[in-house]
């Protein structure tokens, strides 16, 4: 008799709980359930109320990362380690620190993304996807689909960063294998190639179907062009549009000292955030965006002198940042854990500069831009700093370099570092 009542009761409670958990994400965001941050916030400087925890360390060249609904982490390694290019980090004892590391996928690369029951990962030429089980673990590591193949890789700017939308499309960066499309790459005074031939197969974003195997250039849509190299990109669901962070060209002073002194060259051109729609052209290699003059300026390789504006008008950036900071990660924050100002705003991982010499190097931090209705609603600010350690004179001496960003199911922000391989989790805990 008793049993007959208990079973339906238990079922009812379980169902109610399941529905509650499913429909109300804020049940996850109780800050008292978050793990404690590290004593020194893992060496990071953060706004008031935030804390940081190192959840994994020495993973390798941790480029981009993705966090599952179980708060496990997939990390794409720039260089595969012991035949493993993708790491799967799990927290079995649920103390917030990852205690189990396995891996698969014997290829170097940068991109990794979770969408609709699949893990997508990119090498420097291909995109693969792996079916996930109900715990977001890869069901069979040896059984994957080769979604995109044969993309160009000539070393320079070969990261095939990627993101998906809600309509079954995959967007892949194919970076230009050149600095500024000179006849002789990175050679002082060398002029630009007429009708830059690189743009036919690189220097843009290509759109592919997320579920179709063995697609290559002919199968994809040449979605946007004139983008030198994009490592950080994300889909903005408020705006239902792709946003990318372009790495602006290097070495204006080294290559054209008659137009640019070292001080100007250290801050120009802008690192640009673009909102991208089909058919857009951001103008590389013909123009760059000068954030001081607030204008598109002709590249010196194509007749520019630092002041001359371009004849043709190209896409203007959504926001312009100082030069050479190397934006490698972009994430629109949709969680509820952080204070309201962060909701729907953009976090950007700036990998840190190398070609500002003799000025000190800069960047090596995570920045934040507030957004409203899919547009920036305020100035950008530094959100998390201190990755590099003491003053960084050269990128090789930076202890950590922020590269990838991901959001956890509870709204924590995860940052990967491709120098030492540290994975950070940044949380907000009201005191």
């Amino acid at each position: 008799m008793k049993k007959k009542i208990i079973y339906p009761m238990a079922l009812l409670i379980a169902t109610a709980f399941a529905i509650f958990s499913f429909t109300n994400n804020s049940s996850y965001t109780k800050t008292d359930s978050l793990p404690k941050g590290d004593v020194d916030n893992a060496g990071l400087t953060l706004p008031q109320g935030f804390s940081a925890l190192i959840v994994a360390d020495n993973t390798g060249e941790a480029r981009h990362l993705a966090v599952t609904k179980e708060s496990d982490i997939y990390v794409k390694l720039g260089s595969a380690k012991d035949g493993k290019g993708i790491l799967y980090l799990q927290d079995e004892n649920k103390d917030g620190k990852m205690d189990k590391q396995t891996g698969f996928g014997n290829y170097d690369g940068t991109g990794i993304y979770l969408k609709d029951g699949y893990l997508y990962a990119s090498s420097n030429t291909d995109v693969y996807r792996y079916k996930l089980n109900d715990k977001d673990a890869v069901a069979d590591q040896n059984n994957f689909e080769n979604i995109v193949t044969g993309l160009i890789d000539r070393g320079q700017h070969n990261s095939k960063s990627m993101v998906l939308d809600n309509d079954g499309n995959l967007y892949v960066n194919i970076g230009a294998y050149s600095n500024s499309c000179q006849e002789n790459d990175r050679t002082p005074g060398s002029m630009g190639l007429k009708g830059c031939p690189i743009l036919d197969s690189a220097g843009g974003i290509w759109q592919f179907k997320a579920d179709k195997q063995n697609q290559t250039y002919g199968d994809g849509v040449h979605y946007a062009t004139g983008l030198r190299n994009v490592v950080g990109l994300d889909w903005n669901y408020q705006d239902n549009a792709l946003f990318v962070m372009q790495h602006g060209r290097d070495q204006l002073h080294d290559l054209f000292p008659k137009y640019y002194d070292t001080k100007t060259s250290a801050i120009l051109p802008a690192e640009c955030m673009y909102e991208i729609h089909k058919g857009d052209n951001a103008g590389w290699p013909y123009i760059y965006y000068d954030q001081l003059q607030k204008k598109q300026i002709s590249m010196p390789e194509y007749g520019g002198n630092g002041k001359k504006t371009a004849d043709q008008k190209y896409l203007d950036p959504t926001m312009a940042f100082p030069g050479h900071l190397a934006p490698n990660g972009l994430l629109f924050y949709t969680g509820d854990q952080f204070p309201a100002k962060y909701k729907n705003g953009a976090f950007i991982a700036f990998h840190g500069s190398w070609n500002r010499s003799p000025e000190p190097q800069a960047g090596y931090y995570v920045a934040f831009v507030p957004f409203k209705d899919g547009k920036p609603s305020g100035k950008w600010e530094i959100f998390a700093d201190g990755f590099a350690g003491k003053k960084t004179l050269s990128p090789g001496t930076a202890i950590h370099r922020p590269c990838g960003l991901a959001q956890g199911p509870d709204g924590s922000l995860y940052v990967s570092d491709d120098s030492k391989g540290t994975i950070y989790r940044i949380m907000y805990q009201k005191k």
Partner: protein
Amino acid sequence: MNKIIVFGLLMIPFGLFINNSPRNVEKQNIKIFTPVQNSKLPGEKIFKKYCVSCHQVDGGGVPRLNPPLIGTSYVLGDKKPLIEILLNGMKNITIEDKTYTNPMPSFKTLKDQEIADVLTYVRKSFGNDASAITSADVKSVRAKMK
């Protein structure tokens, strides 16, 4: 022993002056601060004009992009291949399993003496201690390439 330490300590400010990198100050041992090293090598000026933006003030290069000039056989080994790199440029080089993807342009427009000076500077800086390269060395490699 104590004398060596005192000598080393005395030399640290000079090290800071030449190369303002904390890492290198830690790394450099006393051997590096020989009188020859402290006299300004003529190649330093050329290095600062053409090389420093990629290879960095400490010769450490940039991970994934520009190779380091410290402790590698490309710099410290045979003179001929090193001279050839400057004359021809190079692309996608792998050193100790790490690949560097930014291409280096040719510097063949520099004079033999300038190439000799900058290579000598590189071979004797950042903790490196390899033999000097002369303009005759550069001339002979250049002649064979034509």
